[in-house]
């Protein structure tokens, strides 16, 4: 069959091709990443020195809120769905995703959802300013009018995510090539299936939370209003029942990416494949019973605090297994350090540092000191930036030849890596110290004793922001004038996408399913 290509704007509007949709997801998430990043620059500029220099406190709150929402829902999650779209059909030997029209729809919801959300910046009363965790009653009774746009936007993102998740599950369970048993699937596919189940379980809970907000705001209910018999803490329970699994939704696919890349560049099979799968699944299961570790200070009964503390610490066990397996995969391998490998190794190291601070935060009596300080900000940025973002970056470098048939410039890639590596640590490591010194999060101004750490973090953040533009430059340069990629550019790469397909992969792949031995 000819490689039929629709052209022009209609190709993108009406496409049902998983590769086109994957590309749109990835570009969309990158645009959101730049917008969310620009907001981070505003935050870091204001925090460069004590005093109110650039923005007033309410706008500052809008910036922290929108930065979080855009990064979580606009940058990280869609980038993972983009990778899933591109890779899952190729990795399991399927011709496309199982539900291609739904695939199109789940992408095209997003631009509208984020237009709604971003439009709130220009509204009277300003954009949502209650933090990305939108605790009631600050977000209900006291929320600005734009809160309703936020609610609708979250609903739309939720629908998009749920559809994406359904698509992944249906594809993986129905469209694997003959011989591709579940325990032969690449780890990226496994981590994504587990992520998809998490999404289906928790996105409706988020939808419930924002719907309750909406009725509290406009239809006279009092779910979260104590004066009417409601309970503001219930909001937090509902939110974090979504919110904690959400953390793993953002990180699990990156685990999959790192597993594949480290094995490829160690030229060795992934160590402990099945224990990797089981560890991922147990992390996912545990993630449902630890949510209230975000709430140790709300005045839970002590039995609750003990339960959530112990359950949270347990997560360190399967997470540890993953880290050990990655090190064991490298052990006695024959490693080379191309850009994807560098980002993956940095991912393992820095994510582990985020894990260490995670164990510290899990210990309730000490968490009373860490909670809602910059220590927490440092913790989750260590998990999310070198975790989710480095994971995606590594994936882009690794699979770019498969996607475009072009190689990036290795030297520029390495510069990008070291630049990011230094900047990310310069940005987020000092935040541990400002937190320990007692700086609360989400404040636009602070005492002199926090000044040095904040100045370092701001300098790091500006460098980190610039490095993303450099990344964009490297990718565009590769696409426009990169060296032509060989069919197998990475010596140690394995999997159907490398063994059974050329670079670039044709527009339609696997019209007849490949045989997997």
């Amino acid at each position, binding site marked *: 069959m000819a490689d039929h290509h629709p052209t022009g704007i209609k190709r993108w509007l009406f496409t049902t091709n998983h590769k086109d949709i994957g590309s749109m997801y990835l570009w969309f998430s990158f645009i959101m990443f730049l917008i969310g990043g620009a907001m981070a620059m505003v935050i870091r500029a204001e925090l460069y020195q004590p*005093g109110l*220099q650039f923005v007033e406190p309410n706008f500052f709150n809008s910036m922290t809120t929108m930065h979080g929402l855009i990064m979580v829902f606009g940058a990280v999650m869609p980038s993972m769905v983009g990778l899933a779209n591109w890779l899952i059909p190729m990795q399991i030997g399927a011709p496309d995703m199982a539900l291609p029209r739904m695939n199109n729809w789940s992408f095209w919801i997003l631009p509208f959802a984020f237009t709604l959300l971003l439009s709130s910046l220009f509204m009277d009363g300003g954009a949502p300013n209650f*933090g990305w965790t939108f*605790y009631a009653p600050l977000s209900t009774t006291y929320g600005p009018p734009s809160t309703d746009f936020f609610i609708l936007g979250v609903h739309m993102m939720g629908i998009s995510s749920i559809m994406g998740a359904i698509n992944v599950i249906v594809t993986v369970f129905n469209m694997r090539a003959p011989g591709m048993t579940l325990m032969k699937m690449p780890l990226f596919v496994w981590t994504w299936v587990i992520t998809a189940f998490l999404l289906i379980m928790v996105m409706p809970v988020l939808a419930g939370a924002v719907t309750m907000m909406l009725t509290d705001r406009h239809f006279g209910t009092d779910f979260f209003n104590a004066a009417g018999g409601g309970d503001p803490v219930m909001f937090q329970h509902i939110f974090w029942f979504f919110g904690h699994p959400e953390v793993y939704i953002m990180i699990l696919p990156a685990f999959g990416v790192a597993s594949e890349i480290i094995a490829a560049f*160690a030229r060795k099979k992934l160590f402990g494949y099945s224990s990797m799968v089981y560890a991922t699944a147990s992390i996912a299961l545990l993630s449902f019973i630890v949510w209230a570790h975000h709430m140790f*200070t709300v*005045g839970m009964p002590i039995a609750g605090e003990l339960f959530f503390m112990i359950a949270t610490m347990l997560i360190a066990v399967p997470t540890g297994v993953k880290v050990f397996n990655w090190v064991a995969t490298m052990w006695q391998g024959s490693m080379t350090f191309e850009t994807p490998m560098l980002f993956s190794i940095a991912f393992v190291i820095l994510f582990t540092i985020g894990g260490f601070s995670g164990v510290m935060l899990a210990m309730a009596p000490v968490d*009373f000191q860490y909670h809602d300080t910059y220590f927490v900000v440092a913790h989750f940025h260590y998990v999310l930036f070198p975790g989710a973002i480095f994971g995606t970056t590594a994936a882009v470098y690794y699979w770019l030849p498969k996607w475009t048939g072009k190689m990036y410039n290795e030297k520029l890639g390495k510069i990008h890596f070291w630049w990011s590596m230094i900047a990310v640590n310069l940005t987020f490591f000092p935040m541990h110290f400002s937190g320990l010194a007692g700086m*609360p999060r989400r404040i636009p101004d602070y005492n002199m004793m926090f000044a040095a750490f904040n100045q370092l973090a701001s300098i790091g953040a500006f460098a980190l922001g610039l490095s993303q533009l450099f990344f964009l430059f490297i990718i565009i340069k590769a696409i426009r004038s990169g060296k032509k990629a060989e069919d197998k550019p990475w010596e140690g790469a394995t999997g159907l996408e490398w063994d059974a397909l050329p670079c670039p992969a044709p527009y339609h792949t696997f019209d007849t399913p490949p045989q997997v031995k």
Partner: protein
Amino acid sequence: MAIRRKLIASLTALVSFVLSGVVQATADLNMRPGVTETSQEAYDLHMMVVWVMTGIAVVVFGLMFYSIIAHRKSNNPKPATWSHSTKVEIVWTAIPFIILIFLTIPAIKLLIKMEDASDPDISIQVTGSQWKWHYKYLDHNVEFYSNLKTPQQEANFDLEKATSNANYLLEVDKELVIPVNKKVRFLVTADDVIHSWWVPELGVKKDAIPGFINETWTSVPKPGTYRGQCTELCGKWHGFMPVVVRAVPQAEFDAWIAQKNDERVAAEKAAAEAAAKSWDLDKLMTLGEEVYNAKCAACHKVDGSGTPPLFPALKGSEIATKAERMDEHIGIVVNGKTGTAMAAFGSQLTDAELAAVITYERNAWGNETGDVVQPADIQAFKAGNQ
């Protein structure tokens, strides 16, 4: 062999670098141990985890960097072919498990201790509201609001003020005074949104939640002033809502309570006198401006322009200019407006202050209604309201 020597050298360098980093951290970048027994135990636990985590980091990253050097293609051209070992996997599932048990036991003990607020010597109700704390001594007839010392207006916060004041953003007009070596129980709640009451050096952080009362406690062995901040995002001026606790010897505390009681009696008398007499517009305007800038300008702005629609403009507003809506105006200031950020000032200000601020709002910034609200009007309003 040269490789091994180089490796060992670089590993030692790495380890000593990490260790020196940690030592440095404990010197001046670390959590403060604080002054109470619980805060110091929390600090010890914190240090224990830091060291355990550092140990794990040295082992795991050490192996990893060894591998990165020794198992690179140039040093190890033929990769091994093994990819599984049940024995090893069981071992490294078990070891973290044991480490975690070792960490959890002291944490459980400390947690139980920290949550035991029974048998207090005195109890203080702590109420957060946008953006101040209200302290009420339940065993004495003393209560007051504790505001950031500098009024919450944007112009008041800049680099120069930050550098010239060691306690920038950590100073209040009235500190919470507690006696040393007494078990002080705090009943923490809020009026509007969720706040969180934190004093790092006491190791106490508790969310202040509207409609619910949380308990926590402290016992401070050493006199001194301990500073903290609100740690739950609570709106525009969240970063400007400090907590200051001054611990004093019992005798000094008793004297302070007695003085507070005298002040209250005197203030009640002065307020009654002030309310009884009739004020002229100028005097109301002077006092009104003072009260307005301290209490209202944070949201409604010094020039009355507000930040609509959250904080409506008072300048030119119907309620503040139309004579027939004057009662409504008084009502909003005295009782607040439910469903909005507008707090009830009826019990925070004296009748004279209320009268003055309302008069000011009706005559400043070109509102010029000429309306004069007297303290007696406020009393009448409150009486009719009951």
